[in-house]
């Protein structure tokens, strides 16, 4: 599998989408609060919006109506169109997709060599 040196690790920050292109394929890089770097296919699995226009958020939670908590900051990617939420930890949508529709983010392997971020695809 080809290895693509993309950027320095310091250029990938928690909470910030970093759009990249490998060949003709758009991807986004994002750093999780744990320090891990994700390389994600650049189109939303729902209706193919460019995810580079989305945002990285956290997760609202709560068991009582109108009492919201907010946690997992930096671990949720929201689509720029419909606002669907995806976990950057697992790639899964926070609300499951119907069986007949695409639902998960596409992750690519990332290697760190020295200060370099390398995406394998």
């Amino acid at each position, binding site marked *: 599998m080809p290895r693509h040196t993309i950027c320095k690790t310091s250029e990938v920050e928690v909470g910030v989408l970093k759009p990249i292109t490998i060949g003709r394929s758009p991807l986004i890089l994002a750093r999780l609060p744990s320090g891990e770097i994700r390389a994600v296919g650049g189109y939303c699995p*729902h*209706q*193919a*919006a*460019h995810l580079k*226009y*989305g*945002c990285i958020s956290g997760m609202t939670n709560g068991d009582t*109506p*109108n009492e919201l908590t907010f946690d997992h900051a930096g671990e949720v990617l*929201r*689509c*720029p*169109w*419909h*606002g669907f939420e995806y976990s950057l930890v697992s790639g899964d949508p926070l609300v499951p997709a*119907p069986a*007949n*529709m695409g639902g998960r983010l596409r992750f690519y392997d990332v290697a760190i060599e020295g200060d370099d971020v390398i995406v394998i695809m």
Partner: protein
Amino acid sequence: MPLIDTDVHESFSGVRDLVPYLPEPYKSWIDGGGWRGFSQPFCYTTPGRGNRADVQNADGSASVSDYGVMRAQLLDYHHHDYAVLTGYFYPTALKLQYGLASAMASAYNDYVAEHWLAKDKRLIGSIQINARDPDAAAREIDRMASHPQIKQVMLAVVDDIAYGHPMYRPIFAAAERNKLTVAFHHTVYAQGPYGMGLHYMERHCLIPIALMPQVISLICNGVFDSFPNLRFMILEGGFSWLPHVMWRLDREFRQGRVEVPWIKKLPSQHCRERLRLSTQPTEDITPDQWGKLIDLMGTDEMLVFSTDYPHFDFDNPNVAIPRALSDDIREKIFWKNAAKFYELDIPTSAVPSQAAE
């Protein structure tokens, strides 16, 4: 495949854009900041707020009003043959000051003609009116109808109007005599039967429930019968509810025709002949279920494609209508049904299968 997009929202940067088109005293009122325009009584929660987050000006700021952005992101990108402009400035939502609302409708129509329709022949225009003054609305329809790109009258779905009421007849009469269609679209004030709900999600789920009563009202109050050449469009209000509404109307008509003898056809027949519904937001059903739904509707000529650009719940034409549907049904949804409804010509060169025949 040709593409006709039946729900595209042009806009302006603010109500002050109307000042050059307003007569006094309304010009001074608006120019002086007496009213800042409609504002939704809720907060948007998606990344682009009410719009797609990628609808941006060159400097990265949010855009809702730029023809160049729309052309690049929608008309050219998706190879539209036509896009029907449906606005999102609906003067009917102003509940008082009818003269001002009617003047703003005229001003907005002039603004759209100059800043949108004149720039691109693919754009089809809709006339905005203030339905709360039906006679003034009819005069505005007569005034704008001669524009060659104007095909439609917009009827805003608010929280207190069911358009079958006899007082709105002048609007339908004007639309019919000018050979225009009428389209219904929700506003930020549309409600369900018990209000707007308590959450944006709740309010957005209630939109179809604000559109269904318009169909029922039009049928029961004889609008379809009084204006036999008029065609009706339901925009962004869902579509899988239609079989139920048709069945219910037919059953009630059999039981209660004695009360409403002015209805001269089965309500379902009226609907199949002259009611159309736009597809966005498409419902997450399988291709097989699409086929069953069309069977329940009794015709494959009722659904017309729409994107709702630039709003956040945009439907991508490459994805939203399953490719597993038959070519015949996809062609009807993407352009044939709308071309018939709006009487639009599609250049023969854009229709390879027909050009080859």
